[in-house]
């Protein structure tokens, strides 16, 4: 009965192969590396989509497997983006300021240089000093560590408080919404230290790679995003494949029972919550350099709700479902909201998709929830034969554990 990891998870190999082919294909067709069939901006869109797929995997782990409907995972995604954005902005501004000051008769002291950088970055919010949280911004390794540490610690503290008090279900969802809303509102303030509603911008310019055209950088980021997604998929598959996966699915289905088996449910939830926050942070750190700008609007509550919608449409409880949902819905969303979809004239009214896309998305979410609870990923069951237990017939009561119609006949 013992099987290797790959034999137990055939989807991993298939997924990695698809991801590899996709990345190779886009590289070959890109402007920067290949024959130029795909524009640089679309390469960036695809790269960003891979990051969204990664955060969707995190969401699937926490919701589809462990049953924690977190509606705050985009807070971690955004924090990851902010952390890498701080270094990108600092280092780039440093380069510009140093270049402009180098013409001065007296070379600037380090203090002068630092205050000039601060002036440049924070002038927009009426400040010329570095806030305390920028203390590590000069160092790429430290900010990269923060990409993992800041979302991880926030999730750890938040999760510890929430899970310890046994907050579950819809109350936990509301709490996570409150967390991401509070964070967004805080960051909107000018004195939050992250430039208020201006956010961090110019992130697409990578310091040290000034000579490299964006068309090439976009492909680099595509590769990095693909690598992160592949790694994230393997890690997630590892987490859910063994006994740990059994336990967290048990927690999803019957928390009290798992507790009486002697597992500390809170510890497991906290572990999954923190792990997925870290994955989300890394995804965000790869996303925003491709987007070029991050502002507090990115972590508004609605973003995290979209994330749940992607996973629901793709099919929760299976990793490839989350990836499919995120890729499909976010690409369709780009297409529809980009204004390139022809309007639909009905005679009396013209449907403009830029406005109606959200309605369409909402409608498909409702339809999927009602008629295809397994989402798009459920289509794979038609070939794979993986299905929920067939209980044969209607419930005979008195409770869900009781015999059902056909079971009783046998």
């Amino acid at each position, binding site marked *: 009965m013992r099987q290797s990891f790959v034999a137990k998870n055939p989807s991993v190999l298939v997924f990695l192969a698809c991801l590899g082919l996709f990345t190779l294909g886009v590289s070959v067709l890109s402007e920067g590396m290949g024959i130029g069939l795909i524009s640089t901006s679309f390469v960036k869109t695809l790269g960003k989509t891979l990051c969204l797929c990664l955060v969707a995997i995190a969401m699937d782990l926490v919701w589809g497997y462990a049953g924690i409907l977190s509606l705050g995972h985009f807070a971690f995604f955004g924090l990851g983006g902010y952390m890498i954005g701080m270094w990108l902005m600092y280092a780039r501004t440093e380069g510009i300021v140093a270049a402009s000051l180098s013409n001065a008769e007296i070379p600037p002291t380090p203090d002068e240089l630092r205050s000039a950088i601060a002036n440049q970055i924070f002038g927009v919010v009426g400040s010329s000093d570095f806030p305390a949280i920028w203390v590590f911004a000069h160092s790429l390794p430290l900010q990269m560590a923060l990409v993992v540490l800041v979302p991880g610690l926030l999730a750890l503290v938040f999760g510890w408080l929430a899970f310890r008090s046994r907050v579950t279900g819809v109350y936990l969802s509301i709490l996570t919404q409150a967390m991401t809303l509070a964070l967004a509102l805080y960051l909107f303030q000018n004195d939050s230290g992250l430039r208020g509603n201006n956010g961090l911008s110019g992130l697409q310019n990578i310091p040290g790679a000034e000579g490299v055209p964006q068309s090439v950088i976009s492909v680099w980021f595509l590769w990095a995003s693909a690598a992160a997604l592949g790694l994230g998929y393997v890690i997630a598959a590892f987490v859910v494949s063994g006994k740990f996966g059994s336990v967290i699915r048990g927690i999803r289905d019957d928390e009290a*029972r798992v507790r009486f088996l*002697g597992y500390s449910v809170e510890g497991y939830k906290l572990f999954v919550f923190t792990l997925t926050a870290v994955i989300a942070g890394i995804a965000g750190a790869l996303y925003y350099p491709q987007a070029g700008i991050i502002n507090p609007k990115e972590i508004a509550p609605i973003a995290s709700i979209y994330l749940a919608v992607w996973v629901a449409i793709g099919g929760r409880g299976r990793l490839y479902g989350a990836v499919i949902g995120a890729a499909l819905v976010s690409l369709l969303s780009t297409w529809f909201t980009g204004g390139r979809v022809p309007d639909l004239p009905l005679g009396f009214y013209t449907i403009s998709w830029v406005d109606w896309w959200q309605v369409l998305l909402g409608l498909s979410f409702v339809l999927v929830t009602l008629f295809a609870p397994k989402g798009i990923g459920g289509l794979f069951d038609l070939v794979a034969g993986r299905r929920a237990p067939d*209980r044969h017939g209607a419930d005979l009561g008195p409770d869900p554990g009781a015999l059902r119609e056909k079971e009783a006949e046998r």
Partner: protein
Amino acid sequence: MSTLLEVSGVSVSFDGFKAINNLSFEIGPAELRAIIGPNGAGKTTFMDIVTGKTRPDEGDVLWGEMSRSLLKMNESQIAQAGIGRKFQRPTVFEDQSVFDNLLMALKKDRAPWKVLFYRETAEDRARVGELAEEIGLADQIGRKAGELSHGQKQWLEIGMLLAQEPRLLLVDEPAAGMTLAEREHTTDLLKQAARTRAVIVVEHDMEFVRRLDCRVTVLHEGSVLAEGSLDFVTKNQQVIDVYLGR
């Protein structure tokens, strides 16, 4: 005989209603005990207190040779200390196979980190196979638990309890909804288990209790009304009044 579990002077009330009223109870390390009582006698609340689900207002629950108080421990710590509980409704993980259900229950390190890097050994698989044999589900080991019949689910849950290797088993109405043949099998399983550990069975069904052939504790309005063999307690006038007077 030493005691494994000692419940002394425990009371608990919900919104003024005294569910358990100065209840005292003890059981030895290898003993089968049936708890009977009319509805609302506090049978389930008693189990909730022992397993840590409900905190009593007063009294103490002491466990094992060291007489550790269970009141300071949470559910999972109590389960790890060696108390297993079977609920009235069969609660198995329906979306997972019989094998996975048993493997999850197997007595192993429960810390998340250990579980994450746990890889099943031949020994563990053999133990799961043995358990499946014991509960009569060896043929069904690869099936999803949700596909089993009601009785099979009950056995699977008992199997999961045995896999935990608890020193005390709390079993809530194991025979509910079972056919006669299934009841006999269940009785055998429980008697078998009680040879090496303490088993407390909460049951309504007198016939089933008679078949268990063990000491009986009668609960009424949250305290012990009578204790002894089934014949002894059924001759007790108070017990007759409580059962027939309603």
